[in-house]
């Protein structure tokens, strides 16, 4: 269990965020005024039952969606109301996402999937000019997550654990400051889940990577510095992991 480290700077925060979805004629509130602050290098788990709004909160923090009410701040600056292009750039440069179902692009090889954030970041010409360096960087990253032998494989040719490793490599390829993981072990067996958590913990420890992880598995959540509990769209409790 990692020690709770108090870091001085608030890295990312959601302030009084509310979010509701409309399903037909029904208005379904998902988040009902949530405040959360995460410091730089902190590893936070968000736990709660299904429908408690934990994934929605993660999406709001990662600018995949915007809050109906409230603000999302990065280093104290509001970022949820930025123009679409700036939000796209933040998603590409500041955030890295890991999903429960891996979400690799099926047409691309593992290497190409990992290179995708750099392809999006750079113009065609810039990417083409630096393709050798980028390729080496991606191979190193895949080597680091133990997929050095699977470079040219398509996602459909990988196991669940390998796909999640590839997804982690892709998320890290853009050198993000914040890694947002939505049930990263939810689709994996216990051993593989443990391996993935070890990888995330080591990344957090080595690179001071801020990690916000959504999970409903209490055991997995305990890997984090702090656990945030959501219930019915409200923050129920938060504190250091036991």
């Amino acid at each position, binding site marked *: 269990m990692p020690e709770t480290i108090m870091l001085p700077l608030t890295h990312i925060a959601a302030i009084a965020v509310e979010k509701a979805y409309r399903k037909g004629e029904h208005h379904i509130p998902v988040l009902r005024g949530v405040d959360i602050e995460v410091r730089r290098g902190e590893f936070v788990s968000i736990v709660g039952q299904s429908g408690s709004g934990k994934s929605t909160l993660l999406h709001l923090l990662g600018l995949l969606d915007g809050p109906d009410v409230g603000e999302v701040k990065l280093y104290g600056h509001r970022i949820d109301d930025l123009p679409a292009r700036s939000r796209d750039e933040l998603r*590409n440069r500041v955030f890295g996402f890991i*999903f429960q179902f891996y979400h690799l692009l099926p*047409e691309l090889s593992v290497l190409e999937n990992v290179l995708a954030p750099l392809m999006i970041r750079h113009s065609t010409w810039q*990417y083409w000019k630096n393709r050798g360096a980028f390729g080496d960087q991606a191979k190193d990253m895949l080597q680091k997550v133990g997929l050095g032998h699977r470079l040219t494989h398509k996602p459909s040719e990988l196991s669940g654990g390998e796909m999640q490793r590839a997804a982690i490599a892709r998320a890290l390829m853009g050198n993000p400051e914040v890694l947002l993981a939505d049930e990263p072990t939810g689709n994996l067996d216990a051993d593989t889940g443990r391996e993935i958590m070890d990888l995330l913990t080591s990344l957090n420890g080595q690179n001071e990577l801020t990690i916000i992880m959504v999970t409903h598995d209490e055991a997995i959540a305990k890997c984090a510095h702090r656990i945030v509990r959501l219930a019915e769209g409200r923050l129920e409790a938060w504190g250091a992991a036991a």
Partner: protein
Amino acid sequence: MYKFLLCARYLRTRYIALASIISVMLGVATMIVVNSVMAGFSTEMRERIHGILADMVLEAMSMDGNADPERQMRIIEEAAGEYIAAMSPTVEIYGMLSFNYAGQYITRPVTLIGIEPASKSKVGTLTDHLENYKPEKDENGKAVGRAPKAADEPPDWELLPAFLEYRRMRMRQPNLGVDDDLDQELADQAKAGEKASGHNGMRGLLDDDEPQKKLTPEEMAAPLPARVYVGAQLVSFQYEDRETGRTRTMAMIQPGDDVALSTVSAGRPPQPRHFNATVVDIFKSGMSEYDSNLVFCNLAELQRVRGMFDPATGEIDPETQEVKFETCTKSITTIQIKLKNYADADKVIERLRSKFPPNTFSIRTWEQKQGPLLAAVEVESAILNVLLFLIIAVAGFGILAIFFMIVVEKTRDIGILKSLGASSQGVMSIFLSYGLSLGMVGAGGGVAVGLLFVRYINEIEAGLTWLTGRKVFDETIYYFPSIPTKVHPMMVLWVAVGAMAIAVLASILPARRAAGLNPVRALRHE
């Protein structure tokens, strides 16, 4: 970079897109083939009409014609001489052509054109259409010998020695030809050694009041003073050879034979005029309208027969006390002009119109004279293009439907890309470039297939004919030995660009839909 990579991968892996590629390809290929064939027909037709009509024509209002062509041509020369390459005076009049064939007396309505062959060949492509200038051909249409006349030899009214010999043989062996009645008649005349001057071979067909005198067989075999080039379709017919299944042409008249012509005189009221003429050559332009209608006659003889001369201007023969026809001022109905550069036609028309009052000559270019025909071809081509372009538009709707399907199928991928920081424009451009790629591949394939089809169109036609047992392209209908084609590179370019534009336009809506997808909903898409 990711746009091109994904676009290329979608092209390779989404086989349903092949349907759009094939429909674009077929549309493009069809447009290229149809346009090329239409352009081939049109060009061939224009060349043939242009060759026969000359660049510009001055036509007299009256069929009596206008007097003194030398003076008229002098005026033309003074007005626009620097633009004019050659001129040829002619007389155009309606008439009837008659001849005997296999016991039948065949009469055909014709346009009789009096020409001076040497000058006429300078204003148009007369020699290209005369059989004496074409090499002898075998059954398959392959040249097997030299043409009786060299291409640079100016045309004249002389009968070739071979045909002169044919006339002599007919005198000696009257039953040689297909025209039994005429042969018999010639034989009778030869026996009697008696023949109407200037009407050998056709006596009995026409009444004439000219005195008769005794002639030697050699004189009897001499061609008549009136000579004609007859349109090939006037004196031949086509039939299908049952043994070979091939279409063959049977000539009813050949050079050396005589025909009877009827027309009207100049003056008021017009009087019927009949005269006989020796066929010197067969005229075959490939334009059915001309080959089944035109008879070219020596100008002076037509003027003499029609009375298109002013006796008051002629000299009197001291012996016979009759006016010498050669010395009289004659009339013509038409002056054909060949320009140095056809682009100057409008300038020349303007100048000539200022010199000739509207009641003397109507001045038109060959295109204006054949305006309705050429306009009909152009309108036909335009309508066909619109209809064919609809085929590509249908392909466009196919792309639209398939793209919507692909966007639905790829919704989660779009969410992934957006979570990685791809902009809406970036996502949109994936599908736009995908549409453009489909258009490019389809148009490229279509251009290749279309051009190959055009290149081997006659071989394909032969194959289809063999396969179906029915002639696809019947040369007797179209009067072309093979399907004419002409590929305009600009047409090919426009068709290809149009197809690509339609493919891109069809992908705009699905691309916008993809760009507008909410990333969270896209990621949750099942």
